C-alpha cells in the first residue's frame, strides 16, 4: 500500500480492475435474476388471475411469503438452511440467483397482475364476442396494451433488483459491494472506493432505464 498514490493512480491500479470484476458479477446476477424473475412473475400473475381458487390461493401465499420476509433472510435460508433441512446444497452463485429470482418474481407478479387488470374488462368481452379464444384475446388485445403500462413499474423493480444483488455478499459472493468493502478495509481511502462503486451501480441502473425508454418509444411508434 502506498498512500502517496494519486487519485487516478490509485483508482486505475487498485480500485477499478477489482471493481470491474465485481460489477461483472453484479450485472450477471441482475440479468439472470431479472429474466427468471419476470418469467416466474408472469406465470404467477396468470395463476393469480385464474378463475380457479386452487391456482389463486397458492400464488397469494407465495407473494405473501416472499414479500413479507426480508430478501437477506431468504438468501441466508437458501444457502445455510436448505442443506441440513432438505439436503439441497446450492453453491453461492445459484443460491444467490435463486433467492433474487424468487423474490423479484413475487413483486413482478403483482405488477403484471395490476397491468393486466388495468385494461378495461369490456375489451376482453368484445374480443370474445368476436370469436377470439381467451388466450388469443390475451396475447393480441390485452397484453400489448398492458405491457406498455407495465414498463415503468417493471423498470423500478429491476432497478431495485440490481441494487439488491449487493445482499448476496453475505454468502461470500464477490459482487460489487463485497469487492468495495474489501478495498475499503484494505486501503482506508473510503471516498474513492465508495465513490466508484456508486458510479458503478448508477451505470447499471441508468443502462436499464435507457433500454426501457427505447422499448417504450418503439411500442409508441408501432401504435399499440
Amino acid at each position, binding site marked *: *500500500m502506498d498512500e502517496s498514490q494519486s487519485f487516478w493512480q490509485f483508482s486505475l491500479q487498485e480500485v477499478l480492475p477489482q471493481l470491474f470484476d465485481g460489477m461483472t458479477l453484479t450485472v450477471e446476477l441482475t440479468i439472470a435474476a431479472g429474466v427468471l424473475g419476470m418469467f416466474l412473475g408472469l406465470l404467477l400473475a396468470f395463476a393469480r388471475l385464474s378463475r380457479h381458487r386452487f391456482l389463486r390461493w397458492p400464488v397469494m401465499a407465495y407473494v405473501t411469503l416472499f414479500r413479507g420476509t426480508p430478501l437477506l433472510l431468504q438468501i441466508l435460508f437458501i*444457502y*445455510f*438452511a*436448505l*442443506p*441440513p433441512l432438505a439436503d439441497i*446444497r446450492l*453453491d*453461492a452463485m445459484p443460491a444467490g440467483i435463486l433467492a433474487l429470482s424468487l423474490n423479484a418474481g413475487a413483486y413482478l407478479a403483482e405488477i403484471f397482475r395490476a397491468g393486466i387488470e388495468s385494461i378495461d374488462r369490456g375489451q376482453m368481452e368484445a374480443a370474445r364476442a368476436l370469436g377470439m379464444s381467451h388466450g388469443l384475446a390475451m396475447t393480441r388485445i390485452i397484453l400489448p396494451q398492458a405491457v406498455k403500462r407495465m414498463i415503468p413499474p417493471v423498470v423500478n423493480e429491476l432497478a431495485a433488483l440490481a441494487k439488491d444483488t449487493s445482499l448476496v*455478499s*453475505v*454468502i*461470500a459472493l464477490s459482487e460489487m459491494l463485497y469487492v468495495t*468493502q*474489501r478495498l*475499503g*478495509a*484494505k486501503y*482506508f481511502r*473510503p471516498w474513492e472506493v465508495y465513490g466508484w462503486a456508486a458510479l458503478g451501480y448508477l451505470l447499471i441502473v441508468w443502462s436499464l432505464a435507457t433500454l426501457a425508454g427505447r422499448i417504450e418509444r418503439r411500442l409508441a411508434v408501432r401504435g399499440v
Partner: protein
Amino acid sequence: MRMVSGFLSIFLLWASLAGSAMAAAAPTIDAIKKAGKFRVAIDVTYPPMETTDAKGNPDGFDIDLAKEFAQRLGVPVEFVVMSWDGIIAGLMAKRYDMICSAMNITPERLKQLDIIEYMQVSQVFVTPNDKPVVKEADLAGKVVAVQVDTTSAAYVEKAKKNGLAIAGIKGFKMATDALSALRAKQADVIVIDEPVGLYFVKQDPKHLIVSGRAIAPEPIGVALRKDAKDLSAEVTQMIANMRRDGTMKKLHLKWFGKEVGG
C-alpha cells in the same frame, strides 16, 4: 507566499509551544473522562472472544477486558457493535476510542494504528472429524471458509498464491457464518483463531474437531488511534498491571478454561 509561510511558521511555533505545554496532560483520556464514557468497538461474531449473552448484550473475553480498562479509567464502558470489515474505518473516524476485538498485530495495521498486545493466539483448522486437515498441504482440493479481512483469510490466500491447489476460498463477513458454512457442507474446513475454533467445536463435538494448527501463536492486541498516545501509554500500563495482579489469568480461566499462550 512569503506572507503565508510567515503565518505558517508562527502557527507552527504556537502549535509546538501548545503541544509541549500539553505533553504533561492527557488529551485523549481527559476527553474520555469529560464524555463520561469509554467507547469500545467489538465485532460480536467471534465467540468466545466477543459474542452476545442470552439477552443480546455483548459478552466474552474481550468484553470483560474492555470493562476492566474502563473501570481502571474510572468511566463506564459503552460498546459499539461493528461489522469487522468496517471496524478500523470507524476508529479512524473517531466513532469510538478503542477496538478490543481479537485483532492480530500485522505490519499493515501498525501503519494505521497503535496496537497493544494482550495475548497470543494460534490459527487452527476446524473440520468434520472424518475429514481432518492436519497440515497446510492437506488444504489441497478443499473449500476453505474464513472471515474476510482476517489473518486467517490472508494466510489461506497466500497459500493459494504460492501454488497450493485450494479448491475455493469463501470469505464470510461473520466468523459464525464460516461455521454455518462448514456445517451446511458449503465448505470443508475453517481456518480461525484457536479460542474461536475450540468454541465452535464445543457447539458440535460429535462432528467437528480442531484438526491441526495453521499458524503458530501470534500476538493480538487492542487498537487505538495513533494520535492517542496518552491512552496507548495508559493501556500498556494497565495490561502490565492486569498480568501482575492476576486479572488476566482470571479472564483466561473464565473464558478458555485454561491459560492460552503468552
